[in-house]
C-alpha cells in the first residue's frame, strides 16, 4: 500500500508542472463556468414563468461527465507510456515495487488530480445554494458529484491501463479516446435496436445511462456502483497485465 501512495504522490506532483494538466483544468472549469452562468441567467430571466422550479446542479455535473470523455485521455496518456519511452520504467520495474502497485499508484495520482479539479468546481453548488432560498437539494449535489467522481475514476483506470500497453503517448491518447467514445456513446445504439435480454446487456454496458439516468438525477443504485467499480478493476487489471507482458518480451 505504501508504494502505491509514494507513486501516486509523485504522479500528482508531476501534474502541477505539466502544461497539459493546466489546459485540462482550465478547459473543464471554463466550460462548466460558462454553463453555470448561462443556467443562472436563464433562471433569473424566467423566474416568473418557472413556477416552483428551482435551478439545480445537474447541468454542471452533466457537462462534467461529457468533458471527462474528452479530457481524461490527455491526462492518462503519458502515465506509463512515457515511463516506457524515457526508460524510467526499467527503474521502477527493478525497484521493490509490485506491478500492480505501480499501476494503482499511477491511477491514484491521476485520480487525485481530477479530484482537485472537481473540488474546485464545488464553488458552483455553493454559489447556487446562496442564490436559492431555502437552499438547493443537498442529496442531488452529493449523488451527482459521486457520479462525476466514479465516471472519472473509471475513465482514469482504463486510461492508465491503456497507457501501459503503449510506448507512444499519442497512440495511447487515441486508443483511450476511442474506448471512451465507444463506452459513452456507441455502445448505447445496439441497446435501442436489439430486443430482450441482448438489449439489456448493452444497456447495462452503456456508461452514460449509469450516470445521467441515475446518479445525476439523485438516485444511487447498487447496479451503478458495481458497474463503475468493475470498470476500475478492469482498467487496473489491464495495466498490470500489460506491465507483466512487457517483462516477458
Amino acid at each position, binding site marked *: 500500500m505504501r508504494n502505491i501512495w*509514494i507513486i501516486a504522490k509523485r504522479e500528482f506532483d508531476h501534474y502541477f508542472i505539466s502544461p497539459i494538466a493546466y489546459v485540462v483544468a482550465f478547459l473543464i472549469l471554463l466550460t462548466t463556468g460558462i454553463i453555470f452562468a448561462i443556467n443562472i441567467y436563464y433562471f433569473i430571466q424566467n423566474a416568473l414563468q418557472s413556477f416552483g422550479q428551482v435551478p439545480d446542479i445537474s447541468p454542471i455535473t452533466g457537462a462534467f461527465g461529457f468533458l471527462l470523455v474528452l479530457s481524461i485521455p490527455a491526462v492518462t496518456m503519458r502515465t506509463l507510456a512515457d515511463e516506457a519511452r524515457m526508460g*524510467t520504467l*526499467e*527503474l521502477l520495474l527493478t*525497484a*521493490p515495487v509490485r506491478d500492480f502497485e505501480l499501476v494503482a499508484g499511477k491511477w491514484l495520482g491521476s485520480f487525485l488530480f481530477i479530484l482537485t479539479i472537481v473540488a474546485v468546481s464545488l464553488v458552483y453548488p455553493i454559489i447556487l445554494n446562496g442564490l436559492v432560498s431555502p437552499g438547493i437539494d443537498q442529496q442531488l449535489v452529493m449523488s451527482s458529484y459521486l457520479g462525476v467522481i466514479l465516471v472519472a475514476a473509471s475513465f482514469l483506470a482504463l486510461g492508465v491501463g491503456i497507457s501501459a500497453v503503449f510506448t507512444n503517448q499519442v497512440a495511447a491518447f487515441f486508443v483511450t479516446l476511442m474506448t471512451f467514445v465507444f463506452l459513452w456513446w456507441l455502445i448505447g445504439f445496439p441497446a435501442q435496436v436489439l430486443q430482450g435480454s441482448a438489449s439489456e446487456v448493452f444497456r447495462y454496458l452503456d456508461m452514460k445511462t449509469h450516470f445521467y439516468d441515475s446518479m445525476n438525477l439523485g438516485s444511487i443504485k447498487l447496479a451503478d456502483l458495481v458497474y463503475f467499480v468493475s470498470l476500475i478493476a478492469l482498467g487496473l487489471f489491464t495495466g498490470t497485465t500489460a506491465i507483466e507482458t512487457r*517483462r*516477458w518480451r
Partner: protein
Amino acid sequence: MIRVNGLTKDYGARRAIDNLTFDAEQGEIVGFLGPNGAGKTTTMRILTGYMPPTDGTATVAGYDVVEESLEVRRRVGYLPETVPLYNDMTALEYLKFMASLRRIPDTEQRAYESLEAVNLEDRADSFIGTFSKGMRQRVGLAQALIHRPEVLILDEPTIGLDPAQIVEIRNVIREIGKDRTVLLSTHILSEAQQMCDRVLIINKGKIVTEDTPENLQSRLVGSQRVVLRVRGDSDGLNARITKVKGVRTVESKPDGSVEFEFGAGEDARPQVAKAVVQGGYELLEMRPVGMSLEEIFLELTRETSDDIKAS
C-alpha cells in the same frame, strides 16, 4: 552472492544469451566484457528482476531472481545503461523518491550521503534536466547506491564521462567493491583491467573465457616480443641474436630496429643484451611489445565467431 546457472534468454527466434554459468563472490568486482549486442544488458536485466530468463536459474544474495524477485530487487542496486532519470525533478527529489520506494527510514539524510559519494552534493537542488551527461551518470550511480545494496549491478557505468570523472567514478566503485559484490559491464578493456578482480569475456551470448586480468594476459600471450635498437648500423645483429638460447624469431624492422620473440617463461633478454654488447654494438633501447588486452579480446571474439560460422 551471484550464482548463475545455465541462463538462457530468447527474444523470439533470436538467442540473446546462451547457457551462461558464472559466480561472483562478496568483495569481488567482476567485469562483464564484450562487444555491443553480446548479451551483457540482457544478463543484467535478468539478475535485477526486470525480466525472467527463458531457461536456467540465477540467485542473487541467496534469492531466486524469478521466484523471489522482490527480495532480489531489495538487495540489488542497478544502474541501467540508459541511466533513467526524471528530468523534472531535482537530484535530491529524485533520490528521495527512489529512497522512499526502497523503504529507507531517513530519506533526506541518505539522499545527501549518496550525492556526497558521487561528489554532487552542491547540485542537490538543481533540476536533473539541466545536468551534463557525466552528472546524470553520477546521479544514476547515487540512485544505485542509496539503499547500500549487497550487490551492485552497473551497466556501462563510465560511458560518456570525461577522463577526470572516469577516475572519480572508478574510485567510488572500487571503494564500494571492497565489501560488496559488483558486476559491471564495459566494452573498454583497460577499464576492466584496472577495476576488476575478475573478467568474464562474453560474445554472442556465450562466455568465451573467465580469469583475472593479469592471468588472462599471461595465459593468452604464449610468447613475449621485444624491440631492440642500437646506435648506427645493425648489420650482423640478427645472426648474433638468433644464436641466443630461447630466441624463436628475429626480424629486422624498416626503421633499423630489430624485433625478437622468445617463449613465455624463458626470458632471453639478459643473454641477448650481453650478446649485443659483446658484439661491439651500442645498445640504446630494449622494450617489450605486449599483446594488448584489446588484441586478446579481438582474437577471442573472432574465434567464437568462426566457431559459430563453422557449426
